[in-house]
């Protein structure tokens, strides 16, 4: 079986312009040669040219014939074939409907499955060395073991006693109301211990985050760190945002820093961070039975997860 025609025609499809030019030049060459021949025979230039053309034949028609050799018939008849197919399908509606339905179900279910898999695909956490980050929870023994979280006294103990961890930070989220502005708004907030940001490895883009001294339960500082989203959305990227006082619920906090775009804390919703020390009144913070939050911790580099659970 000769594959040449198909191959040549495919090439022709892509090099249409060049083929046209080549054809023109080829014919022009032939006519010029014939004309020169006649001139050598003694004819006048104009006569020679006419004679050459006459002998050649209908140039336009012949060029058309040459082009026909190169045309890719399948493509040219494609529109005819499509129309024929549509007509045939219309003549047997039952078959067409079944075919369309089968295709729709097939394509639809495939798309659904792949979309779901894509969405569920675990993406690496955007924090520093996320493999070494763990969440600590307290368990409480009732009729069976219940996960409750830590209480502040628990947290303190863990922090001082645990050997496997570099650092720990308590964190919890809550909805607070931003007051004292034109439009009060419910803001998702996180209460976090001072080392929280360092544990995640995220630096503020303006100002700073809490210091350990500010996170003192005995004397908590009324400071807050803001998210980039909130800063842009409510405060118009105010360059003097650091130092501004804002009311959350009933208390006034001073903005000390702004976090980078895209960072919304471990809860992935936070617009504001407050020191953990203001999480509850001092009495509540001292109560060991008050369990309800998790603790973020980073394993020491040489410690594996296995040993830590021991």
């Amino acid at each position, binding site marked *: 079986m000769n594959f040449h*025609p198909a191959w*040549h025609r495919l090439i022709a499809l892509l090099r249409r312009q060049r083929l046209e030019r080549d054809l023109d030049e080829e*014919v022009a060459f032939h006519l010029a*040669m014939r004309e020169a021949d006649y001139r050598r025979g003694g004819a006048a230039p104009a006569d020679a040219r006419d004679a050459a053309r006459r002998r050649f034949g*209908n140039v336009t028609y012949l060029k058309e*014939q040459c082009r*026909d050799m190169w045309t890719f018939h399948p493509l040219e008849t494609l529109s005819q074939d499509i129309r024929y197919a549509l007509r045939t399908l219309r003549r047997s509606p039952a078959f067409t409907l079944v075919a369309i339905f089968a295709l729709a179900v097939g394509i639809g279910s495939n798309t659904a499955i792949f979309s779901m898999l894509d969405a569920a695909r675990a993406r690496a956490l955007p924090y520093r060395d996320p493999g070494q980050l763990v969440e600590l929870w307290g368990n409480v023994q009732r009729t069976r073991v219940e996960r409750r979280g830590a209480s502040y006294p628990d947290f303190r103990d863990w922090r001082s006693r645990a050997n496997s961890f570099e650092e720990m930070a308590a964190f919890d989220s809550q909805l607070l109301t931003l007051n004292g502005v034109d439009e009060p708004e419910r803001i998702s907030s996180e209460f976090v211990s001072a080392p929280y940001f360092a544990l995640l490895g995220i630096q503020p883009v303006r100002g700073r985050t809490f210091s350990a001294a500010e996170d003192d339960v005995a004397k908590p500082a009324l400071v807050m760190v803001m998210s980039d989203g909130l800063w842009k959305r409510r405060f118009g990227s105010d360059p003097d945002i650091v130092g501004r006082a804002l009311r959350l619920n009933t208390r006034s906090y001073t903005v000390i820093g702004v976090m980078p775009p895209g960072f919304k804390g471990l809860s992935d919703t936070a617009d504001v961070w407050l020191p953990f020390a203001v999480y509850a009144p001092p009495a509540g913070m001292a109560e060991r039975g008050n369990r309800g939050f998790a603790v973020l911790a980073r394993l020491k580099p040489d410690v594996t997860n296995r040993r830590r659970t021991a």
Partner: protein
Amino acid sequence: MGDARAKTPPGELMPGTLDMLILKTLSRGAMHGYSIAQFIQQASRDVLRVEEGALYPALHRLEVRGLLKAEWGTSDNNRRAKFYTLTALGRRELDEEAAYWERVAAAVTRVMQTA
């Protein structure tokens, strides 16, 4: 597709025959369209005058079929011209066509020679 089996006036060539003559001409070496036309006319002692324009569709058809290869080169008088050469496939085709032609010609002659 240009494979016209229309009535050919006497003295002119049927497309199939023209193809065969082109292949035979090119078996002597690469030539451009004009030289091919000249050669056929001279070699046939002026009996066969190829309608020159018809030569080119034939050449292009043979090229598409893979029996010829075309290349741009320079002619004797330093002009750019398209030169055709016979491919291996073309050579085989030529042998087949020539054999068939001889058989047909011999048969026709035999019939004409009966009383």
